[in-house]
């Protein structure tokens, strides 16, 4: 099993490719069907954000093999305009009220760990981990 794979996001169709990649990796790692669906949805959301706000970027999927646990790490990277107010986009009801879907709070809920780094004009890197339930 390859430890890392990635998909370039340039057009809407690429979102499907990213979902597919994440789901397959999740299946291989032994995630149950609910968690597979959650991982795919989280990737979908992150890829869609790239497509909508940064136009281009990448989704990496990485297997984590810790001593006593296994997990899947998603990294969404873009060189878009960056997020000016991270607290705001992490607020419930901020993005969803505009009908944009689950938003970043949704991604955080779907995954176990979540981190976000953003610089104005330099872009945004979001990483999220889901652990395989033992």
């Amino acid at each position, binding site marked *: 099993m390859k430890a890392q794979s990635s998909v370039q996001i340039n057009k809407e169709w690429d979102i499907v490719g990213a979902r597919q990649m994440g789901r397959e990796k999740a299946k291989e790692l032994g995630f149950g069907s*609910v968690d597979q*669906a959650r991982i795919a*949805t989280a990737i979908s959301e992150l890829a869609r954000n790239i497509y909508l706000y940064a136009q281009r970027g990448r989704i990496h999927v990485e297997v984590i093999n810790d001593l006593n646990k296994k997990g899947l790490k998603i990294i969404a990277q873009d060189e878009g305009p960056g997020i000016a107010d991270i607290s705001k986009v992490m607020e*419930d*009801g901020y993005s969803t009220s505009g009908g944009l879907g*689950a938003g970043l709070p*949704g991604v955080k*809920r*779907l995954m176990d760990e979540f981190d976000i780094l953003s610089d104005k004009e330099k872009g945004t890197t979001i990483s999220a981990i889901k652990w395989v339930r033992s």
Partner: protein
Amino acid sequence: MELNKFDFNNYRDLLDRYILKQDESALYQAEQFTKLSMQNNILPEEFINIHIQALKELYPDLPKEICASLNFLLETMISYGLAYQEFQTLREKQGELESEISVAASMQQTLLSTTKPEISGLDIGAISVPANRMNGDYHHFVKDESNNLGIAIADVIGKGIPAALAMSMIKYALDSFPESQLSPSVILENLNRVVERNVDTNMFITMFYGFFDSKNSVLQYASAGHEPGFYYCAKEDKFIEIKAKGLVLGVTPDAIYEQFELKLEKDDIVILLTDGVTECRIGERFIESEEVLHVIRQYIHLPAQEAVEKVFKYFERIQDFHLRDDFTLIFLKKEV
């Protein structure tokens, strides 16, 4: 079947029974099961998954098309699950906000509280009820050493928290004026300057200020665009609108307020109110001021406090116990 815990086996057995017998009791238990699962924070996609697993155990040879369709269903539930979690978080947040507001409301009550003074020869009744949690109406009584009464009634255009904040300012401005200077027109002119300097131009405050000279039984008063009150003349048994022209507070720094006088005889009543009383709505219709007076007339023979409470109860009821605006009503009844 004992259904006191959220358990996979329970669900499977329940499903089995229902598929075989299709009886209502299994459905009733399913309902209980759903409630239990919500208490345990089971999300919709997890619930669907329990269903899929149960079905696979009961029917190991389930057609693969059915399996695929159920996985498809599970996938569609993810967003519902997220929305459900978000809703729960927002509900918690709402609870926090509400408790914050009730702290603010009780603080406002302490800040703006006024005690009804005892003035010999004058029976005073006062009631002030906010439409929401915080009151944008304000009334205040001051008694001086010569048994005279200063009385303020004010209304901020608008209601809720901004109105309540503005009212606190009015109260402190009023407190800061020397007590010997209880001339209504001067008080309004001073207050007007305070409001003009400190309050946003789109917020208006109306106020009626009265000074009751108990020795001569004369009410001196001035109004800053406040809802006109009524004077009940006992001798003629009729209500007369208390007319007093004046600009609402805070429009221009140098507004002048004309002062008027009213001599009170035995059983005469001065009725002061805010527009929460006169603009009370029944359905889509505003009530007419004749109706207000008609209601007031039914209770004027009662002691002042009881009368204002009865009038309030009447209007509360015809508005289906849901006030549209803050409601303040004051009766000053001349006893001797």
